């Protein structure tokens, strides 16, 4: 025993060279309330002690309507691969109050920190609480949207000055950022920005189906249409479209409803398809499509006739039914309207965007008028082509409500009919016209055989003839993670609960949503994307039906309409900033996934 004590003594002398500090010596936290009702907090650290920056947290634990508005933190440095503070860090906590909070409030700040000694010792996480009597009169009122923890890394010099305190933007989703653009900028700038967004949207498939419609409508005005009239007609069409978008958008923003779903019910689709069939037959010259004269004379005052009213109605309806496309700018405007209730500015933004979307349509319309050939055989041909395109649009719309094989069959019949019309089975004719006709004929025939053989692919109708290839394809596809379909919050929560610790991607989808289909067939079908997506639990929220469950689901995640991709982290927390609205190309999507 005596020997032991001697040994212990000697060891104390020996390792006494390394004298570790006790936690209260290593870290000395401070916090005071300054005159501007900001909390100045710091952790004084001893020699050779460092703090992990992500372990230093400041939070308000009192629950009386006073929250952190902004937190200014010093810049951390890389230390053995971790971000750390090597010098005593100082923080400034800016506070804000809820609208209904007045007078003095006791605010409790919890300062937590954790660090190590360079000499080889890591301390336990520590925390200290401070109470302050905060005069809420000096605080700014909390903005509509809660700003969660924000951290901006400022340089030490700037922090010491601390005079210029820039508000820190929260990392947010594109549509939120756009919503903020409306909130902050001047009106001209907003309108110009949204006009630009509209022009960009015009390059997406949302607007494509409208091209045959507008050209067809112009052509159907008959011979001798002047460029001016063609322009006026296109303008009326686009204006009507813009008005429709604006009205629907404002209503959706105010009521938080799914923008287009209401108009995607089968009977609306059927009637609209019928309208297109009627238009097509008028193109073929079976009859002249006109609104009743009595109606026309009531609505239209002067010499302009039925064209304008009809085209306005078409523009209005096609905006809602043909081209429903939710993209980030649209959702942004809706978020803004929803949050501020400012329907005027939001509506103006939407209108501006729709006009932008319509510009290419006006160009198409005018050129349809201008380049219309002289009356003659060509004229009938052009009308016939647009008639066929109208029928194509009608079938395309039916895709949303009827089975694939029916629409495929219709496409096949349409193709064969048109090919025969073009003279595929006749001798002679122009070589170009003849080739087009023959190719179309054989493709349509293949399509017809495909339907009968049970194929579902428009691109590869004869796939059923190669059973082995099909099996092989199914096998390779089966090796990837499949989407789990859900329609309600409960189903989603169940799946999320089962997949704790995994990253989850939630895809809002509807049968009638063109951009969703494109997303599936282009982006999700990309081989690299498939591999990357295997890291996620994939959930597909089918909001086609748009019943109570689906509406609640969309509302919970702030989705105005599909497509929208919501990402959850390992703790099933929504990563709002990572939300994608609208179509995204495979490459940027891949980059997006890699950042998650």
């Amino acid at each position, binding site marked *: 025993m005596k020997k032991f004590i001697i040994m212990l003594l000697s060891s104390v002398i020996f390792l006494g060279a390394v004298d570790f500090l006790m936690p209260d010596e290593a870290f000395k936290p401070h916090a005071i309330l300054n005159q501007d009702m900001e909390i100045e907090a710091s952790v004084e650290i001893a020699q050779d002690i460092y703090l992990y920056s992500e372990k230093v947290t400041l939070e308000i634990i009192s629950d009386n309507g006073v929250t952190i508005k902004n937190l200014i933190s010093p810049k951390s440095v890389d230390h053995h691969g971790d971000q750390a503070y090597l010098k005593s860090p100082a923080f400034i906590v800016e506070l804000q109050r809820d609208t209904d909070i007045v007078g003095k409030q006791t605010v409790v700040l919890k300062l937590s920190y954790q660090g190590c000694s360079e*000499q080889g010792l890591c301390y336990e996480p520590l925390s200290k609480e401070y109470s302050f009597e905060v005069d809420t009169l000096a605080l700014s009122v909390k903005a509509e949207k809660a700003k969660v923890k924000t951290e901006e890394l400022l340089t030490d010099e700037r922090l010491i000055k601390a005079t210029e305190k820039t508000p820190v933007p929260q990392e947010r989703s594109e549509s939120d950022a756009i919503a903020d653009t409306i909130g902050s900028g001047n009106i001209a700038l907003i309108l110009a920005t949204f006009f630009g967004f509209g022009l960009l949207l015009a390059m997406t498939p949302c607007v494509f189906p409208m091209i045959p419609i507008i050209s067809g409508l112009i052509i159907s005005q008959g011979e001798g249409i002047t460029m001016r009239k063609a322009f006026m007609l296109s303008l009326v069409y686009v204006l009507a479209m813009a008005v429709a978008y604006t009205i629907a958008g404002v209503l959706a923003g105010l009521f938080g409803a799914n923008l287009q779903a209401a108009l995607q019910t089968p009977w609306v689709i059927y009637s609209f398809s019928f309208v297109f069939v009627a238009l097509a037959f008028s193109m073929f010259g079976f009859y002249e499509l006109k609104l009743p004269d009595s109606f026309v004379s009531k609505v239209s005052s002067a010499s302009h006739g039925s064209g304008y009213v009809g085209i306005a109605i078409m523009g209005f309806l096609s905006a809602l039914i043909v081209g429903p496309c939710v993209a980030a700018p649209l959702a942004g405007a809706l978020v803004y309207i929803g949050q501020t209730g400012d329907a005027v500015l939001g509506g103006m933004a939407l209108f501006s965007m729709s006009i932008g979307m319509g510009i290419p349509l006006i160009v198409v319309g005018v050129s349809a008028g201008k380049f219309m050939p002289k009356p003659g055989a060509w004229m009938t041909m052009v009308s016939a082509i647009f008639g066929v395109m109208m029928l194509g649009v009608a079938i395309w719309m039916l895709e949303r409500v009827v089975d694939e094989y029916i629409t495929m069959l219709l496409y096949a019949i349409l193709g064969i009919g048109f090919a025969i019309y073009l003279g595929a089975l006749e001798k002679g004719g122009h070589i170009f016209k003849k080739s087009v006709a023959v190719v179309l004929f054989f493709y349509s025939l293949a399509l017809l055989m495909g339907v009968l053989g049970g194929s579902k692919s428009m691109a590869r109708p004869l796939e059923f003839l190669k059973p082995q290839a099909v099996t092989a394809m199914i096998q390779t596809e089966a090796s990837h993670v499949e989407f789990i379909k859900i329609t309600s919050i409960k189903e989603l929560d169940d799946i999320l609960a089962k997949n704790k610790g995994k990253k989850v991607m939630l895809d809002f989808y509807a049968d009638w949503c063109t951009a969703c289909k494109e997303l599936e067939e282009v982006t999700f079908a990309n081989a690299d994307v498939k591999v990357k997506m295997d890291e996620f639990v994939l959930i597909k929220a089918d909001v086609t039906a748009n019943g109570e469950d689906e509406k609640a689901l969309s509302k919970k995640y702030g989705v105005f309409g599909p497509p929208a991709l919501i990402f959850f982290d390992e703790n099933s927390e929504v990563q709002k900033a990572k939300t994608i609205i609208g179509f995204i190309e495979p490459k940027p999507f891949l980059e997006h996934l890699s950042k998650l």
Partner: protein
Amino acid sequence: MKKTVLIILFLVTSVFADINWVEDIDDAYEVAAQENKQVMVMLSREGCSACDYMKGIVFKDTKFSSRFNKGLIAVHIDIHKDFMPDGLEFFATPTFYFLDADEKILHRINGAHNSKDFSEELELFNFLK
């Protein structure tokens, strides 16, 4: 049977350059009693860089680990996850306790040290063979 498994595990792991870790502290006392060795308890936790230094560098040193394994059985306790035996105090991690097979504390070392200092400290107590 359990002992046989432990001993086999022990022999297998001694091929590699690491100190011999056993799963829990009771196993450690058992093996220590059998082989006439002492027990080293390392208190650590996740995200403790000094602990990682000891585990990843000092204990992986072949010269150190071969001497260590002749005299000591090592066991690791995560202060947040594992059950804490009575009497093992700490104010930071890593903290090392050296005990005999009768669970009596012989020595305590706070913090990480390089292999030279750590070895010299253990030599003072004749822990290293």
